[in-house]
């Protein structure tokens, strides 16, 4: 009887999950995910058999008493608050994917960015290995998840530093040092996975993944410049970001092939590139002011000639 109740609940959840799918216009992988969520809920049911039987006995008790027993079993099947319930389901699936990928990261050094790592990760969460089927076999989602995670960590770090500067507890770094430190901090996050990172880079360059990987890269560079204090509103906005993207990408590639202790060759390379960029911008400014001075000189010469030739008459 308890099993029947459990089956009914699982079925009800599957049905609601399919409604959520239709509503949100999702695609096959996510439907599989819904099914997996239901499967997981079903496996939860098995673990919580005693709860189910006691809930049957307390059937006549007021709903308030019923709810606390339902809650630990995941999203609880209430007939009210449809919108809220469905978005709760939506979130828990995302959170599930998120959790699987996070757990999978610790198996990456051993298995690479593959479905095996995801399967191992799923196992540690008590899920079936089939959960790896929710994701593409080339590990794209795992890599994108990792990159997104690193970017978030970098942003937090930069925000914290900014707060310290605002509170006066730290000195404001000069731009080249700031950029160097930010890029170094971000690249250091790759160190635990450095062996398998070239594989990840090639996956990120797959046409399917390019929109996501490009978006993550550009937003990371934008964040770094924002915290560096960039306030340009003209074409400089693009030049600066392009330059920093080039610095970041080349340094990352150098890091892949670096075998020096503590990656000191990489950090030296980074320092040189940032110095080059600063020098380039100084040169550009100099060229511009020289150009302006030359133009003014020419204008002065033209006016002088006009005066001498008597052509410059007041209108």
């Amino acid at each position, binding site marked *: 009887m308890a099993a029947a109740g459990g089956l009914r609940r699982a079925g009800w959840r599957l049905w609601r999950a399919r409604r959520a799918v239709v509503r949100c216009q999702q695609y096959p992988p996510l439907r599989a995910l819904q099914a997996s969520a239901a499967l997981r809920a079903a496996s939860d049911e098995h673990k919580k058999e005693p709860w189910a039987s006691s809930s049957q006995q307390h059937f006549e008790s007021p709903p308030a008493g019923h709810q606390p027993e339902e809650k630990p079993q995941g999203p609880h099947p209430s007939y009210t608050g449809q919108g809220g319930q469905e978005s709760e389901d939506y979130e828990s699936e995302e959170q599930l994917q998120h959790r699987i990928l996070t757990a999978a990261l610790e198996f990456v050094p051993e298995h690479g960015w593959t479905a095996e790592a995801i399967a191992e990760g799923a196992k540690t969460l008590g899920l079936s290995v089939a959960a790896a089927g929710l994701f593409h076999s080339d590990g794209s989602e795992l890599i994108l998840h990792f990159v*997104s995670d690193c970017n978030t960590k970098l942003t937090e770090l930069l925000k914290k530093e900014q707060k310290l500067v605002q509170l006066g507890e730290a000195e404001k770094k000069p731009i080249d040092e700031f950029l160097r430190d930010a890029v170094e901090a971000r690249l250091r996050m790759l160190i635990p996975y450095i062996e398998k990172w070239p594989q990840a880079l090639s996956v990120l360059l797959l046409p399917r993944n390019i929109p996501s990987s490009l978006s*993550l890269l550009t937003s990371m560079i934008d964040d770094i410049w924002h915290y560096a204090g960039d306030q340009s509103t003209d074409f400089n*906005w693009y030049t600066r970001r392009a330059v920093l993207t080039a610095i970041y990408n080349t340094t990352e590639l150098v890091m892949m092939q670096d075998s020096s202790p503590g990656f000191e060759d990489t950090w030296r390379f980074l320092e040189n590139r940032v110095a080059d960029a600063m020098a380039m911008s100084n040169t550009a400014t100099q060229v511009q002011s020289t150009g302006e001075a030359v133009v003014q000189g020419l204008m002065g010469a033209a006016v002088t000639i006009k005066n001498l030739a008597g052509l410059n008459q007041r209108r």
Partner: protein
Amino acid sequence: MAAAVVPALRCSLLQRRPLRCGPGVRAVPGAGAALRPCSSRVAQDGINQPVIDRIIRVDHAGEYGANRIYAGQMAVLGRSSVGPVIQQMWNQEKKHLKKFNELMVAYRVRPTVLLPFWNVAGFVLGAGSALLGKKGAMACTVAVEESISEHYNNQIRTLIEEDPEKYKELLQVIKQFRDEEQEHHDIGLEHDAEATPAYSVLKTAIQLGCKAAIFLSERI
């Protein structure tokens, strides 16, 4: 991090924000993959970032272009009788541009890639219309300011439809600027803009150009 994803997610479901996402990994309904990790940029206080992005980008481009148009007109007509009038309108445009520069930094909006192009095109339009005479310059002013006023009105409508309370400051700025552009339009008419030869052709051509500029600057 999961706790931060939850409210941002609910927000996105209600607002259908397509590309700008909160921190971490989020599914984008209707996107090409089950999980589409987006930028780690934190959405500021639940404002509709894509809409605000477009608005500020195109307005900034517009004021920048208007600046250059007046610069072109001054280069040709600076020492004529309408010089002071154009100079005064130019000063107001400079103030507008300054305000949009501030807003751009505050909302972290990307400027349009076409800025160098609007730089040149604006100057050429201003100088070209001024070479047609004082009335030509005024006709150009009337055409551009009418375009811009209509455009600002559209934006005000959009923002009011979204949420007048959340965008109060921005709405105020845009309303004030729209009123000032309308003033410029009226000044242009006062100075015999309509007496320009081929006024309607000139006006239509310029307004078509403005529409194209607005379309491109919003997107690129």
